Every structure is written in C-alpha cells, then in structure tokens.
C-alpha cells in the first residue's frame, strides 16, 4: 500500500514509525467466532425472503397474472371497470347531440303542434 500524505511517512524515520505501530497493533489478536455461529447465521438468514430486482419482480408478476386467472383478481377487475368507465365516458362525449324538435318534425308530429 502507499501512504503519501502523512508528513512522517516520507522518510526512513516515518517507515520505522510505521513498522513500530504495526508491531504494536499486532499485539491485539482476533478472537475466533463461536463454533456454532456460522450455522446459526446461515439458518436465520436463509429463512428470510430474498429481494429480487424491480425488473425481475415486475416480469414475474406479469407472467403469473397471465397464467393464473385468480392472481391479482381485484386489480384485474378494477382495471376492467376503469376501462369500461373510460369507454363509456368517451362514447358519451363523442356522441352527436340530438335535436328533439327536429326529430319530432321529421316524424310528422310538427303538424299537430
């Protein structure tokens, strides 16, 4: 490793100091983990569900929705209702307004008026 911005690391004395510090730090040895810790961790972690990336989750949900009719039924019905509502609203908006009087004259009712 390189250490270049420590003011006392750029000469022989600095290197000696570094070695001295390393030797002192080496006195603190690591305590090994308990023997059963690996098994406990593996057991606890693998019991948790894994998170998938967004893309994978959306694709999996879409695939399931297409293959299982019951999956997401509420959302499917809500989407259908929304589409129906939009369709009805669009149809109503685009329908030509009817002139009732003209229609009545056309049908011959104007003579009696």
């Amino acid at each position: 490793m390189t250490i270049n911005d420590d003011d006392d690391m750029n000469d022989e004395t600095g290197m000696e100091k570094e070695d001295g510090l390393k030797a002192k730090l080496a006195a603190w040895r690591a305590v090994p983990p308990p023997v059963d810790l690996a098994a406990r961790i593996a057991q606890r972690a693998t019991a948790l569900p894994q998170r998938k990336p967004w893309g994978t989750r959306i694709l999996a949900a879409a695939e399931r929705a297409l293959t299982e009719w019951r999956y997401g039924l509420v959302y499917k019905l809500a989407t259908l209702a929304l589409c129906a509502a939009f369709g009805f609203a669009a149809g109503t908006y685009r329908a030509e307004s009817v002139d009732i009087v003209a229609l009545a004259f056309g049908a011959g009712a104007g003579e009696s008026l």
Partner: protein
Amino acid sequence: MPQRSMPSEISDTRSNASSDAALMERVAGGDAQAFRMLVERYLPRAHAVARRMLGSAAEAEDAVQEAFCRIWTHAAAFRAERAAFFTWAYRIIANACLDAMRRRTPAAEPVDDMAENLADPAPDAQSRHESLQVRQAVQALPPRQRLAVVLCYFEGMTNPEAAAAMDMNVKALEGLLVRARRSLRNRLDG
C-alpha cells in the same frame, strides 16, 4: 513506500474472487448450501472486523448476523463485474458495524469487562496487557478512523480496497489513516 504486511486470509480472499462470484450467483438463485459456504469462508474475518469495531462479543455477533442476512436478502443486487465479492461484503459488514454504533446509547458503551479479557487469545500477562492497550487505543478512535485502521492494518486491505469498502475516495481514506495513526501513536507511545 512502506508496504503493509498482508494477513494470509486476505490474499486467500483475492484468489477466491472467481469462486465467490460463482457462489453468489447460486445464492442469488436461493441456494442455501452456497450461502453456507460463503458464511463459513468469510465469518472469521467478518467477526474480527465487528469485534474490533464494536468491542463487545454480543454486539459483534449481532452485527455479523445482520450483515450476512443483508448479503442473503440482497444477493441479487451483487454485480461481479462492478466489485469483488469481498469488497462488497466488507462494505455491508462495515455498514452493519457503523449502524450498531449509531444505535448505541451512551450507557450501552462497552466496557473492558472480565469476559473480554478472558477471551483474549494472548499467551501471557504481558501480551494481554499490550493487547489491552492496543484495544483501548483503537476503541478510542472515532468510528470511521477506527474502521479505516481495522480494514487497512488488521485486515491487510490496500487503500483502494478499504476506500471501496468504506464507500469513499482514496484521498479521504488516507486522511482518516493519517489522523488515526497520530492518535494511536499518542496513546501507545505516550
């Protein structure tokens, strides 16, 4: 330029990089056996980092457990082409330790209790005393300086590797190391 001596475990870790990536691919697919192999491979180092960062055995175990749970649940987020597994794993372990330190209340600060001294693997009283001094000096450092010292000096990581594990640039890490070395020298020599 001085070279830090590298613990043999970290060089083993580097040579295991490709098999780690293969294992992680299996872990991402939900393979519990592959995960167990990874835990057994990395637990001693993860535990050593947590123990040195947190001081207490119980907190270290909790932090390591938390870190490995994150590795399992977020396995799909690992990208072998972006970083080596051990760098990614060290980042998760470091974050778990920093989170544990943030959650601490002042009253929960670990003390050098008897159990801690008894667990010390130093062979004699003199070595145990030296070990205690180093432990106290390292524990007195601010969290990020302590993490930098643990990764670079105890784990034998290079500066770029430690910087990647700490999610910072190399210059910032070197700044932390400079301040940490000064504090350690003051405490250990003074």
